Structure formats: C-alpha cells, structure tokens
C-alpha cells in the first residue's frame, strides 16, 4: 500500500545546526502513527516540513503523493488537517467564527453543518460563541483539533493534541483520534505522553537528534522491550537488606523503585528463580511479578536510556528512570535454581 507520508533522507538546518538529519520514515494509510522523540528531536520541524510551512535543505518529502512546492501539493495540503505546536487561533473571535474562517480557507461553505457537529464532538458547543481569548489551554486545544478535522481530511497531523487537557478530556480526544482511521483519516501524532500514545497509536517512528532511531508497530517495539524489564518484588522494609543481599549474591541487579518495591533485573527466565534466591535468605515476598513492558520502557531502551532527554517525555507518565540503583552483578550471572 502506498504510504500517505514519506520522508526520504530529509535534512533541515537552522544556521549551522542540523535539526533534521537524513531522516527517512513513512506513514501507511489507515494507521495511527506516533512520532516520538526527546525534546529537540525534530518532531515539530518534521511536521512543519511536511506541511510546507518550513522548507527542507535536502532529501525528498511526499505528502499524499505530492512534494512540497510541486504539482498537486496545494491539493494535498488541503486534504490534510493539522494541529502543529499550539493551536493558531484568532483570539478575538469566537470558536464558531474560527471554524467558519477555516472552512472558507479550505474552500468549503462557511455555514457547513460539520462546523457545529465538530464543535459538539470536541465538547465546545456550549461555549461556541465565546471569544477564544477567554478559553482555557485545554479548550483551545480542543478547538485546534476541530479546526484540523473540519474538512474530513485524508491525513491529520497532530502535534501534542492532548496538551492542557484534563484526564477526561484526554480520554475523549483519545477516543476521537482512535475513531479517525475508520472514517478514512490517517493520523500522524506526536506526544510526550507515552502511556497515552501506547493507547492511541498502532505504529511509532522514534527520532532523536533529527535522525530515525526506530520505526515499526508499537507491539513490536514493546516486545523487544519486554525482554529487559525484570521483576518487581515487595518485601517488608526491614527485610530489604537481607533481600537485596540474597538477590545480589544470586547475580541479579537490584534497584529500589520510588514506591519501595525492588526492581530485580538480570537474566531471569521465570519468577521462581527470584523467589528461590529470596528464600535462601529466609525472605518471603509479599508480591512478586514481572514488570510489564510499556512504550516508555521501549522508548528509553531505543533512545539508549537517554534519561535526561526522556525525563520530559516521562514527566506526565510513570516514573521510569527514577529508580535508585543500589548495585549488584551486571555480568549476566544467574542465581541457582531450585
């Protein structure tokens, strides 16, 4: 199937700094593809290049089969909805007026019934007549999303669409995004909320320093990460020293999670090996379970455990990378088994 978006060794420099560096990836039709990367990875620049807002310095880009500046690009952009960076809104106009202007800009009637329907879909019907400057960040974000969808685009590009939304809003927008492929709209979305992306997207493109790091189905990325997640163990706090000592003696690496649980990693093929190691010190765990891999783990693994960069990515999600490692064998030695 022909991808709706393709980047082929694309580069973009600002002054002497390469923001996008030989980047190649594609977005298949009908997918929800997440564009992920640490702050400054080049996600927003890639989206701006795709829409023709910024011009590339090398390589080729295809948007719905058209190259920026080339024949058919005008039509391709008009079949693409976009919410890039913060929503671009006329602050002194109402949400409805903003929608009418957007519809007219796209060659639609400014009284198209879809305007009211979309405002309802993003939960702004009751405030549609209010000036946008009175809106909260979340409401502006909702309006930005409605603007991006007003012409039933073939592709929609969303940059941090859940910014500023409350938890209920995040769920609503997630459901809306997930419903788009069924309506014929392919989605390219970037987000810092990796747990959210995991629930929304089916593919991920991970970039860092403007370069492609990994690309593929999210299930595959997580399967790779699953191999390196370890086990979570809860023991009474007074037994921590004994438990840690026993686990280290067995050759495992032990870290203390922020909630006091022990994260045991190493070559562990089943949890019984951990239980056995604990039993040698007379420690009976209250809880012992494999820590499930998530997209965040995969992201950190793929970006080389770049915790500093990923810290921002993880700030609204669970605290991977916040463990306080307390040592242990790292040479892959395993404990004896019962």
């Amino acid at each position, binding site marked *: 199937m022909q991808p709706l978006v393709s980047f082929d060794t694309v580069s973009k420099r600002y002054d002497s700094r390469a923001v996008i560096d030989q980047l190649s990836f594609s977005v298949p039709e009908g997918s929800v593809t997440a564009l992920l990367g640490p702050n400054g990875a080049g996600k927003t620049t890639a989206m701006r290049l795709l829409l023709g807002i910024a011009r590339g310095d090398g390589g080729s880009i295809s948007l719905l089969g058209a190259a920026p500046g080339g024949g058919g690009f005008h039509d391709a952009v008009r079949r693409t909805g976009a919410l890039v960076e913060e929503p*671009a809104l*006329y602050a002194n106009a109402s949400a409805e007026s903003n929608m009418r202007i957007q519809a007219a800009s796209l060659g639609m009637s400014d009284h198209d019934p879809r305007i009211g329907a979309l405002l309802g879909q993003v939960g702004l019907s009751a405030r549609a007549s209010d000036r946008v400057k009175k809106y909260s960040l979340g409401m502006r974000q909702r309006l930005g999303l409605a603007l991006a969808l007003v012409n039933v685009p073939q592709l929609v590009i969303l940059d941090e669409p859940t910014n500023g939304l409350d938890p209920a809003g995040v769920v609503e927008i997630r459901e809306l995004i997930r419903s788009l492929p069924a309506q014929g709209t392919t989605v390219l979305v970037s987000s810092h909320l990796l747990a959210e992306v995991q629930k929304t997207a089916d593919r991920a493109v991970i970039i860092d320093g403007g370069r492609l790091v990994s690309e593929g189905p999210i299930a595959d990325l997580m399967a790779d990460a699953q191999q390196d997640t370890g086990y979570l163990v809860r023991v009474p706090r007074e037994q921590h020293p004994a438990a840690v000592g026993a686990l280290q003696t067995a050759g495992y690496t032990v870290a203390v999670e922020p909630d006091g649980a022990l994260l045991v990693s190493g070559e562990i093929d089943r949890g019984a090996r951990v239980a056995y190691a604990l039993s040698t010190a007379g420690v009976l765990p209250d809880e012992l379970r494999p820590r499930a891999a998530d997209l965040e783990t995969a992201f950190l693994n793929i970006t080389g455990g770049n915790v500093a960069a990923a810290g921002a990515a993880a700030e609204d999600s669970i605290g991977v990378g916040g463990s306080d490692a307390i040592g242990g064998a790292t040479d892959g030695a395993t404990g004896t088994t019962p």
Partner: protein
Amino acid sequence: MNPELLKLRLLPMPRWILGLSLVAPLLVGLIVLAVQPSTDDAYRGGPTTMATFAVMIGALVFGAWMFGVEFGQGTMRRTITAEPRRGLVLTWKLLTTAAAAAVFAAVAMGFSALVAITICAAHGVNANTESILDLSLAVTLQAPLIALIAAAFTLVFRSFAGGLVATFAMIFVVDGVLRLLLGKYGDYTFGTSLVSIMTIFDETDQSAPFGLAQTLLIALGWIAAIASPGAYRFIRGDFK
C-alpha cells in the same frame, strides 16, 4: 466567501475602526450644533475634517492589522496551511486591504457628508456639497494607499506594532529627511503624493505638484519597494 473577506466580517478590529470613523464625525456634528460657532466653515467642514483624520488613522491601523493580526497570533501558519499557494494568499490580502480601505473611507466620508449637510441645513448654512464630494473622493483614494504602505511595512517586520511605527516614521520623519536631502531633484516622497491627491481634487487650488497618474505611480512605487523584501520572505521563507 473569500476567507479574507470573512475575516473582515468576523474579526472585531475592522468593525471598531469603521465604528470609530462613524462616531467621530457624528460627535463633532453634535458638538457644532450644541456650541453653534459663528463661522459657517465649522458647520461645513467640522464633521468631514474629523472623518478625514479618522479615516487616515483608521486606514493605517487597518493596513497594519491585515497582516499583523496573522503574524501576532500565529494564524498566518494556519492560513498558508489551508492555502499553500503563498503568492495567491499575499495577493488576496493586499487586494482585500486596498479594496476594504477604499470602501471604509467611502462609507465614513459619505456618512460625515450626511452629518455636515444635515447640520448645515439645521443652521441655515450652504453646505457646499461639491467641495464635500471632492474631499470624500480624495480621501477614498488616499485611504487604500495608506493601508497598503502600512501593510507593506508590517509584511517586512512581521509585527502589527512594527508596521504601525514604521509607517508613522515614514510619513513623519523619513519623508522630511528625504525632502531635505534630495529635494533639489524633486519631491517624490510618499507623503507628498498623498498631499498631491488632496490638492488635485480640491479644484480651487492649482498647485498640485503632479498629475493624478504620476501621483499614483509614485505612491505605488513606494509601496512596491517597501513590500518587496517582505513579500519575498513571505513566499520563500519559513513560518513560525
């Protein structure tokens, strides 16, 4: 409807500018009626002079706003994402600026003429409608030029405030400096072309330095020269 025209209808600034340009001559008319000055010129010229001033300032603000509102709120990005043919966007915006400024001037001057004629009739003074019509025509021709020069500066600075300040500086400072430095070669400044338009339409005054065609050519030349670098950057450059 063309999106640029729809913006004029749906965004508040054009309404404010037009509203103030209508209220200002009406207020002057009411004051003249209340004060009842002894000179007939106050009845004939009070509302139209006020409208002329309001239209000049209004056209300047409107021209800067046409581009400044988009750059200031980041909506230019949205505009060129909906219509990526940037040359077309720029052309529509400049045409809309000129046309809307002319319509706005015609409406404001027409209304001020009505106010002047009404208060003249109420006070038994000859309104001299021919003179009022000449003034209205001159202002209707000046307004688009002022709006376009403000739009051109805003295009260069990508800022509403920058466009306003630069236009004021051009009319009140740069023109004077150019007159001083290059006056011996002829006065081809933008400000002089505006004055020339007024003089051409005032049939009692024969001292217009240029004919109408030449005057318009000078003014449009200035607009083109100032707009060119901004237009080039608009069409070829990146948008934030």
